[in-house]
């Protein structure tokens, strides 16, 4: 990956220029600490129609008071990305409308992903008392040449005279430990403030001290419903950097497993959406079929949720002899079962009334928020990485990219259900032709990547999952960043949830289909 460094003075000008040139999708933003060269960020921008990418970077040598102009007004998603970078590196983005920490507590001392960060417990002891909400009520905007300490209190997110309720972090409908702070007027939601970080494990920081094969284990624990795809992305990134070619058999196996994982995830999405809307029977129907996918996975990989299957150069173990026939039997059964889902739930009048036109995400917003995956495709954005930047076997198989134009919760479900059919199609094309060969290529015991920056992306179950590695030639990465699939989704959620009812909020949340460990990392 070739990066162009922009001078900080011309930074905003250049970014605006790129936006005008059609770079409307901010694929990734990576906070960086280059030691002596200072702190900064790398931006990967993409043109959503031509799929042409540019990689830009900006840095500031000032380590005491690092400041970079914001681009959150140009790409919506930059608002949360910049908060993440501020949280981890302490870079203040001037002009940012809401410069708070994203993951860590407000009373956290220091910025943990900096190379000069002191992790001693004396500085950040385990705090047993709750975080005060006082701090969380404020919004900070930073003006140029002013430090965060002198920042202006612009407006408050939520006022005490409002009827504020917490949905989460422990709530049946948040699908994990995410917390929405809602300001309500009767049943109507006036304002949503999303607080993440309840399951933040500092995986990116951990990776910096692990060897490359050791980092693999973390990927399954990001989005556990895209375990295969996540690990595929990391393996692919490392293999590309090493110049290692994997055998065709591995490519076939990886593609089939990725698709099985996608079906598993989409079935879970259907089930959970149904359960969140009170249709518990539909939930059980979805899980009935998901169980069969998990059985196949268990037989091949030994795991049901966390499979640890891909390794650098191949896969952990060869497929079992009965694999092909079981997968085929499952695919044939699943196609019949899909009709049942439509009969009992999707075509139900109550469900249609509750989901059509609820939580509409426009195409422009979807791109600006970088909401890829089923959510983006429901808004009519052709954002499938399998089509945009084909990898593994996807360039050679025939499948359709499902697009809907409604952008509402109903379309988001339809996209997922129709994608199950496409995934089955891909599997059926591959399953009979798995070529003979090695299921893994031998690698050296110690893997060192050449110096440079590498990026690889796959289509995860709920969007684009990317891996960025900056290597300085060691056996551990200098910086490893995972593009979360869920963060753009909750950024979009914050916008489309405004003005809806409490019940709609649950529908929208379920239809966006985010997974929290992937957001928090």
């Amino acid at each position, binding site marked *: 990956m070739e990066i162009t460094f922009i001078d900080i003075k011309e930074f905003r000008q250049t970014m605006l220029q790129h936006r005008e040139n059609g770079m409307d999708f901010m694929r990734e933003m990576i906070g960086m600490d280059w030691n002596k060269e200072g702190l900064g960020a790398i931006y990967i921008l993409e043109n959503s129609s031509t799929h042409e990418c540019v990689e830009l970077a900006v840095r500031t040598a000032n380590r005491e008071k690092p400041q970079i102009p914001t681009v959150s007004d140009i790409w919506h998603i930059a608002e949360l990305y910049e908060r993440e970078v501020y949280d981890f590196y302490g870079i203040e983005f001037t002009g940012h409308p809401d410069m708070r920490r994203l993951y860590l507590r407000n009373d956290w001392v220091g910025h943990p992903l900096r190379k000069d960060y002191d992790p001693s417990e004396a500085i950040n002891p385990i705090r047993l008392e709750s975080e005060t909400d006082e701090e969380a009520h404020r919004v900070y905007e930073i003006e140029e040449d002013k430090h965060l300490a002198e920042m202006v209190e612009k407006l408050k997110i939520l006022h005490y005279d409002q*009827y504020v*309720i917490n949905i989460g972090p422990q*709530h*049946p*409908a948040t699908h994990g430990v995410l917390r929405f702070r809602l300001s*309500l007027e009767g*049943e109507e939601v006036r304002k949503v403030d999303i607080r993440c970080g309840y399951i933040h494990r500092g995986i990116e920081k951990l990776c910096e001290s692990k060897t490359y094969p050791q980092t693999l284990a973390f990927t399954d624990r990001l989005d556990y419903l895209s375990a295969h795809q996540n690990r595929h992305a990391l393996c692919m990134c490392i293999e590309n950097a090493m110049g290692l070619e994997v055998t065709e058999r591995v490519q076939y196996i990886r593609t089939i497993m990725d698709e099985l994982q996608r079906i598993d995830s989409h079935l879970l999405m259907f089930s959970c959406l*149904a*359960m*969140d*809307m*009170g*249709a*518990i*029977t*539909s939930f*059980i*129907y979805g899980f*009935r079929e998901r169980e069969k996918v998990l059985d196949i996975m268990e037989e091949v990989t030994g795991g049901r949720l966390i499979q640890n299957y891909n390794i650098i150069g191949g896969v952990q173990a060869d497929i079992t002899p009965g694999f092909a026939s079981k997968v085929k039997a499952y695919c044939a059964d699943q196609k019949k079962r899909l009709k049942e889902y439509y009969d*009992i*739930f999707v075509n*139900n009048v*109550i*469900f249609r*009334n*509750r989901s059509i036109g609820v939580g509409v995400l426009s195409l422009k917003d979807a791109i600006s928020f970088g909401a890829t995956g089923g959510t983006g495709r429901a808004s009519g954005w052709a954002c499938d990485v399998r089509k945009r930047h084909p990898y593994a076997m996807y360039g050679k198989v025939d499948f359709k990219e499902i697009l809907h134009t409604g952008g509402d919760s109903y379309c988001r479900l339809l996209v997922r259900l129709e994608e199950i059919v496409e995934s089955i199609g891909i599997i059926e094309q591959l399953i009979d032709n798995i070529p003979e060969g090695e299921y893994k290529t031998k690698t050296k015991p110690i893997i060192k990547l050449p110096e440079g920056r590498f990026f690889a992306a796959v289509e995860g179950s709920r969007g684009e999952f990317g891996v960025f590695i900056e290597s300085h030639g060691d056996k551990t990465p200098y910086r490893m960043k995972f593009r979360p699939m869920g963060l753009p989704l909750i950024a979009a959620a914050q916008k489309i949830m405004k003005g809806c*009812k*409490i*019940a*709609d*909020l*649950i529908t929208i949340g379920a239809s966006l289909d985010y997974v929290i460990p992937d957001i928090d990392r």
Partner: protein
Amino acid sequence: MLDFTTITTAIDRFLHSALPDWAATLTECALVAVCVIAAYLVFAIVMIFMERKVCAAFQCRLGPTRVGFWGVLQVFADVFKMLIKEIIEIKDSDRILYNLAPFLVIMSSLITFSCLPFAEGLQVLDFNIGVFFIMAASSFGILGILLAGWSSSNKFSMIGAMRSGGQMISYELSMGLCILTLVVLSGTMQISEIVETQTRGWFIIRGHIPAIIAFIIYIIAGNAETNRAPFDLPEAESELTAGFHTEYSGMGFGLFYVAEFMNMFIISGIASTLFLGGWAPLYIPGLEGFNEAMCWIPGIVWFLGKTFFVIWLMMWIRWTFPRMRIDQVLVLEWKYLVPIGLLNLLIMTICVVMGWTF
């Protein structure tokens, strides 16, 4: 057909001969109370078990199978667990109202329960405006729900209570209209007489089209009255955790739970009384032999059979449909059910006046 009045009058005579008048009346009151509460609990247990099995059948599962043969002791185990659980005192809650609320709910359903005609002569409360009494008694249960939500000092409970307030009061209207439609047809408000007239044909057949419309509206409104899916918004699990009874533990929650099930029984019981003939056996004019044979089946079997059929219908609805949204619930009631119900009442009146009923 067996008439229970013979048994009750025998007991009455026996008590009066053995005891002074006041003591006899007191003993009778106590006996009746014990019977009603016992029946209430037995039906609750049967229904909780039934719900589990029916739900399991709809979801391709087996339901409880471990406790006792075919899982029959599961409910007893649940009740025992509920009884030994700690009752939590909530900080900042309104103690009196908080503790009172479940009793209001259970009281309302108990009183309504005693109005049901289980068989000929097997009815506790029966007087000339019985239908009105049922409606009045059943509607003060909502008070308990509102109080529970208000006194829990929990914002989720509060939203749940407000939802149930809006919903239950609205649907009471449709329910009243449906009952009124049937009162027009029967010409009386006394429960026993309503059933009595149906020995010559059930109202759902005699009242044909308007009666069937009323029955459908009644089932929809009944689902809403009992807070069951698709109208389970007051306790919408995925939105409000448990709605108005979030903060209740142990038997406080148990009472709400039992009351919810028994309200379903009562709604079904009233449905079978008004529309399906209560304890009246199937009557087909002209087939005297057949009618004779039907009369050999005891009234209580007829009543419970019809009631459990309606309950099964409601369970089927519950385990099939997703939940509605509060504004849709109110739109359905005020824009569709109430106007249709009013029109239906008019149609029924015309039918009765013109003699177009069977």
